């Protein structure tokens, strides 16, 4: 029996920190060393550069949101760009989110299939995953945030399993620090690797629910840098443990890091790792799905849980669509690149906002 009152402001400082943190860590980090492999051993410091970029791009997001403290990005689009243009852009974002989510799930499920469930198709696992996803998302952003906190503390233990790789690795791989030749390599690494730190941009959608909006920037920043630190540890240990050739060709090198150690009672810790990873995937995908649902609600100006079911059905279809793996890969990769657009989007909105303000002043 529930007779509690519903409040608009839901997210406290911990929630904001861990929402930013957990949403960033998804499948990306598993293949991060490979994505950055164009830089060879010099990739170790790359996550720190990502961190700087993320911090810089976070600022316009918070800025534009603080001008509209009670509206999410979908509403802001409609306000600043006009109803029709705004709605078109919002629809585009929702579609991008859906494809992005489908990409993450499909990626993860194929990983599960190749390591843990070799004799099954992915239909059943995907279906159960989506059911659980509906359950988490229907609890609202606060339930997602709590789930993020839990996820962090449950999965942080995996750092311990990398210590064998650290012991067996070679420190000298770090030097020289910036040992790459062309800007192209750097650009390539940035393009493919930055994907692993995506996720903090969702702050633009849950910003209206934050209690202490003035400190939202600081709290998100803490979350971002926790994730960046984890990415840095990953790449650093990978650089120490692997050869350059391995970095380039071992697809999920992080899982192999876990295999470096041995227990007398258990082998293949990577299977535990990859199955427990479902927490990280769930927290990431749940936040994106919640945003997509908010987007649909803004589009049709009506609140209902039915949209959630429709969205999940679409995701299921996209993951299971009868097309070649190549086409799917292409689709998901392009959705990732569109994701970069979302990071730069608030800069455009900032300009529109300033221009409009000026116009108003002149009138």
């Amino acid at each position, binding site marked *: *029996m*529930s*007779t*509690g009152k519903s409040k608009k402001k839901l997210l406290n400082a*911990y929630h904001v920190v861990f929402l930013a943190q957990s949403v960033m860590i998804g499948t990306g980090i598993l293949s991060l060393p490979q994505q950055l492999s164009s830089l060879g051993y010099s990739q170790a410091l790359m996550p720190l550069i990502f961190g700087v970029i993320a911090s810089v791009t976070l600022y316009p997001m918070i800025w534009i949101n603080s001008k509209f403290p009670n509206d999410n990005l979908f509403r802001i689009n409609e306000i600043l760009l006009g109803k029709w243009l705004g709605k078109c852009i919002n629809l585009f974002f929702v579609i991008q989110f859906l494809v992005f989510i489908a990409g993450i799930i499909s990626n993860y499920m194929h990983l*599960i299939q190749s390591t*843990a*469930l070799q004799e*099954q198709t992915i239909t*059943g*696992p995907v279906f*159960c*995953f989506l059911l*659980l996803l509906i*359950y*988490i998302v229907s*609890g609202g952003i606060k*339930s997602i945030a*709590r*789930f993020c*906190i*839990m996820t962090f*503390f*449950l999965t942080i233990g995996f750092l311990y399993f990398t210590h064998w790789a650290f012991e067996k690795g070679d420190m000298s791989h770090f030097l020289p620090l910036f040992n790459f030749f062309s800007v192209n390599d750097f650009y390539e690494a940035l393009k493919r690797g930055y994907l692993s730190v995506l996720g903090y941009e969702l702050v633009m959608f849950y910003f209206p629910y934050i209690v202490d909006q003035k400190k939202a920037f600081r709290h998100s920043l803490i979350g971002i840098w926790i994730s960046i630190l984890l990415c840095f540890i990953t790449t650093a240990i990978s650089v120490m443990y692997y050869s350059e050739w391995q970095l380039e060709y071992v697809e999920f090198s992080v899982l192999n890091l876990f295999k470096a150690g041995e*227990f*007398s*009672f*258990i*082998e*293949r810790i990577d*299977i*535990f790792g990859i*199955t*427990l990873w*479902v*927490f990280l995937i*769930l927290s990431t995908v749940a936040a994106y799905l919640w945003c997509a649902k908010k987007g649909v609600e803004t589009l049709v100006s009506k609140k209902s849980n039915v949209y959630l079911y429709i969205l999940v059905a679409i995701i299921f279809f996209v993951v299971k669509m009868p097309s070649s793996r190549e086409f799917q890969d292409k689709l998901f990769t392009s959705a990732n690149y569109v994701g970069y657009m979302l990071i730069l989007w608030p800069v455009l909105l900032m300009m529109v906002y300033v221009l409009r303000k000026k116009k108003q002043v002149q009138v």
Partner: protein
Amino acid sequence: MEEREQQVIDQIKDKVQEIDDVVIKEMVTDVGDATIIYFSSLIEKMTLQSMVFIPLANHVNQIFQVSEALELDDVDLILQKLDAGQTLLFFHKTAQLRVIDTYSAPTRSITNTETESTVIGPQDAFTESLETNISLVKRRIQNPMLKNETRTVGTETNIKISILYIDNIVNKENLDTLRERINQIQFPFFTDISELKQLIEDNPLSPFPQHYMSVRPDSVSQYLIDGRIVIFMDNSQAAIVCPTSFFEMFVSVEDYYNRWTTASLLRMLRFFGFFLTIMITPMYISALTFHPEVLPYELLLNLQESRSKVPFPPLIEVLFIELIIEVLREAGSRMPAKVGQTIGIVGGIVIGTAAVEAGLLSNILIVLVATSALLSFLPPIFLLSNTSRFIRYIFILSAGLFGLYGLMLAFAWLFAHLLRLNSLGTPYMSPVVPRNASDLFDSIIRFPTKYLKTKKGISRAQKK
């Protein structure tokens, strides 16, 4: 005698016609004739003598001092008083109706608790009498701020409940929410307070108990001091404490009587035991069905050897033995104590050795199942132990479907569910998601007693 009074008496007589324990007496007193009506089964003869008949015969004024006047208009109310064990006195000369509370139902004396027994600490437990229970708490908290609100629930039975709280500590918002929920209840009857608990919980569909229940006065008083609200019900032994967190289901009041080191060890055992008991057998299934590669070669050999004669797949094997354990447990708790021992021996021997020798089960599984059955009894709250029994089947089935991935999915469901639960509007999972940093002093590790002064975050107590 007024006509109206006679009418009322006739009405009452009409209503109590088939109630054989009703007593209607006419008496002559100093202030004229009087009619006395009461239920003899609810009142002891001694009480009646000393409170009604002796004063009536000797000092009628005394009656007027201890009794309460009642209007004649509301016959239903008069009948309700009669049902509650009060004695009605009609004085014909003055046309007055007086009632005296003579209710003296038989109660049992205070005894030890059998369901929540401890080695150290006070041994008294609540009884089924509301008055006794409240007095047991008031004896421990001698503070005028301790309030008890009495109301009735049950639309057909009018059972008395009492809400206890300490006025200057309790969170008023919680109290209002609780009052509102109790007011909204439309339920014909209650035989135990656990029924009331299921009606006022935040999520009645959840397998988890969201309010603490205890029969120990010391434990209940401790929660009261922390700013929680306690509900008693007449005719039921346990008290509800709300709000409570998931973690507090693993706290026994004995933890505070033990040394902090021992207490911390035991708490860790209970807490991780809960997760182990639901994970052990599913792990077995997923390792044998889907991922034999996670086991080292020697262990796998060992396992396969013990399973070599077993004709079932691991899922069926596990379900089979888990169900047998359930049957044993259920049979054991329903049997009379003397027969129960036989069941234990038969069960132990039949399942322990014969089933393995017959090649129905592997010995390693027996060890695992026995361990998980023992672990499931660790939580001090029996309701949580029952929850773990149910949840385990979800885990077993999902492990049977998708192996470790299914297990982790079920695990994620468990956490998502726990994180969504509220107890009276406050998160059930605190202090895992802490509200106050000081909550961590009294969580899995119980800090030395001097650190335990602060109120818990979950009770949202008033700041002094």
